[in-house]
């Protein structure tokens, strides 16, 4: 069970959160060409190592935020708010 630091509430156990997949995706808009649209809908980065991902504190403040997590160890390198750059992760 992970322990995740919500930037608003502090460290909490994983069951309070829901996973939101890859962070910093850009919604391509409804004008996207078919390839770009399929890429946005179905393709997510899936690296072995540090991964910037989204979580939402569903059973807490309900805020979305970003986490940098190592997918090979589950070590969490930091979390940061949506309006902060990854460099602000802590």
């Amino acid at each position, binding site marked *: *069970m*992970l*322990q995740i630091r919500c930037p608003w509430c502090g*460290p909490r*156990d994983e069951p309070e959160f*829901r996973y*939101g997949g890859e962070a910093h995706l850009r*919604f391509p*808009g*409804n*004008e*996207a060409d*078919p390839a770009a*649209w399929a890429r946005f*809908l179905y393709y997510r980065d899936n690296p072995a190592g540090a991964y910037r991902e*989204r979580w*939402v504190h*569903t059973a807490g403040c*309900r*805020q*979305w935020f970003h986490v940098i997590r190592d997918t090979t*160890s*589950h*070590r*969490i390198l930091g979390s940061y708010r*949506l*309006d902060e750059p990854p460099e602000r992760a802590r």
Partner: protein
Amino acid sequence: MRRLRPGTATDPAKPLSFRWNGTAFDALAGDTLASGLLANGVRVVGSSVSFGRPRGVMSAGLEEAHAFAQIGEGGASEPLMRATTVDLHHGLVARGLSTKGTLVQGDDPARFEKRHGHCDVLVVGGGPAGLAAAWAASAGGARVILVETTARWGGALGRDLELIDGAPALAWVDRITRDLAARPEVTALRRTTAAVSLDQNGVVLVERLPETTPPDRIRPIRRLWQVRARAVVVATGALERGVVFQDNDRPGVMLASAVRSYWHLHGIAPATVVLFTTNDDGYRTAFDLVEAGVLVRVLDARESIGPVGEQARARGIEVLSNAVVAGTRADQAGLLAAARFQAGRRQGEWPCEVLAVAGGYQPLLDLPAQRPDQSHRIVGAAAGQWSLAECLLDGLDAGVAAAEAVGFGSPGPTRPVVGPDWDRSPGTTLWQVPAPDGDETRSFVDLHRDVTVAGLDRALGAGVRSVEHLKRYTLAGTGIEQGKSAKAAAGAIASDRLGSEKPLGVSTGRPPTEPIAFALLAGRARGDLFEPVRTTPAHPAHVAAGAVFENVGQWKRPRYFPRPGETMAEAVAREARAVRTGVAIMDASTLGKIEVQGADAAEFLDRLYLNRLSSLKVGRARYAAMCRLDGTVFDDGVVMRLAPDRFFVTTSTGHAASVFEWMEEWRQTEWPDLEVWTTSTTEQWATYAVAGPQARTVVQSVAPTCDLSREGFPFLGVRPATIAGIAGLLARVSFSGELAFEVMVQSRHGLAVWNALLEAGTPLGMARYGLEALSLLRAEKGYLIVGQDTDADTSPIDAGLGWMISDKDFLGRRSLEMATHRRSDRKQLVGFLPSDPAIVLPEGAQFVADPTQPKPMTMIGHVTTSHPSPTLGRSFGLALVRGGRDRIGHIVHAPLEDRTVAVEIVDPVFYDKAGARRDG
């Protein structure tokens, strides 16, 4: 073996009795089941799984591979408990097992509970290193949790006579534990095993609490802790390992440290012992037992026996150097009778009751191995510190460092003086003594699983080169103790037998370190407490009215309200008729409700929903639906505009949470510039649908000041109203096609308003209706239920909701423009009429065009909703059919198990196509 004196663990003032395999035995408080059996001379505790050989207690701890027992009776009977880790209590009932447990039907009165713990430093292990670490870590005020798997503090100090600061080590243990008890921030738990390592320094603990026979119904017998620590110190110590030799499984072959442990803790000793050791530490057993008057002889595997061996000789103990046990001899019962040895060229046989084997220590690292990348501090014997002085210093240093790492200082602890110290280092490494006759079929590597050296040879001969294949081929290390005693030996012996190749290593241990009862994992989440039940404010009234409930997610919703003697079909028909011809009321409070507010609320909803909601006028409602990004139907509901910047959105019951989360996701992550807020209000409102030609009369009587006239309160109007004296909302929306009002009041008034509406309806014979009647009524109108009449492929166009799509942008629009969504053979929602109006097709039945086609048949659609309709006087239904709209007027076929039913595809609206009845 027998009890010669009370040990340090047992209390002679507290005798108790227990039953083993039907026989009553006496023992003392402080005994384990294993020590109780040994004290009573029980040498055989079970038989081996594959060969049926008799087996006896071989250890004094969690590495036990033989002594398994079924504990307790009836539903509280627990299989496969290790006798070495079960504390005896008066009246305990146990019987021996080989490796197969038994499950017993019956009530289990025992309670199991869970608890969370938070601390700065968690110290796992209450031996010398762990005690020292906990003491040092807590000295500066850090919150410390210290856990010890056995019933006693001190670990090896209970069996190893050591001096600390000039006094017996147990006095030091007492002093430290008293200090810890006096520190309010310290939680010290015995009989508690760290079982699972979680990410971010979490550890799951299993705490065993006192048990009684018969079981207590009040006090829990076990507690599952989930601890979050800021730092973890692992001081789990080391386990002594045996040596593999021929017939090494006889009852009487034991670990040397276990023999010593039974003597010191429980006062139990055999009459004669042969010690087979590879190291100095084994001699402790010889020295301690000699003092008890036991005849001890020593076989030392080393070329040179060293000073300790010489000391033994000086004390009159016979010691052979360069000596190994080559095998054992058994008596007629299969019990150990003698150790056969080989010492240089000398061969011989020493009779003995116990053959104590000291193969060196091996760090117990199964907890940190679960999360090898965590920064746990491993100290003491677990870290390969082989002297008490090193263990204590290691523990103190780790305690100070752990406390400092999380911001607590520690007064420099005084360093205890140990003396004289013993060397616990492994001595010479000896995994196996080859069988003199070459027959390795009785040289047991995994005593629990009956895996022999011959079995390893066979695997290697088959081409096995990985230790994991070795485990799977032979099953070595797959037992209850997960090969605590066997895994390393299997890997080492196999490597040795392969010769030059690289070491095979050790197979991976899996969590938990100790077996955990399912009942403990479930904790209180059983029976009525399994999962919360969500009920609406009017629930008590539904219960009183005899409703038959349906689980919809966590909600309890009335399915129908049978009158005495009525079948479901009869009740549903009656309820539906009441809506069509009179009036009826339904509890719709489970519908999801979301308030959307803010200057950009309308823009926000426009982006989410297919239809344009910014054009909705205040005081008006609109049926709306939304897509997922892939263009499939996500949810539908009614959106009401209460003010220019305030919308009241309803969702289907099952999607209340997901729609709300969807809104929040887009609001926060993509559209933070919009000035809009959402709030889930599902549980704040009770919602009742009063439907039927006489609905207006009923509602008017509870809302006398409200103009409910056709002109004054048109269809899809919404307005505040006082209902039965309660301020609420009224909306003219209808899911049945009849004149209907939705009454919404705050939940706390819900029951009162429900009762008031019922009372108002009584003169008109108002019925209650449930989900079944609702499903029938809405299907007659062709209204779909998302998730029932749509699936993960259904687009709004397929579902007949294409009319909602406006020229604005919305989520999912891009997908709907893809070619696949314009194919004419997509499954579309249509109506159908069975050719025989008495036949009600089962929901889920498939349609084919050619009923004579052999299987596999080409399926073109399936029934999503099917009912007998009292209003239509016949059966009917909705279906998703390939190219369905083009098939209207055509016949398709539903091949059922016993017959094939011809079906006409029709328009999905069966009742009041003109929509005249909604105005009453």
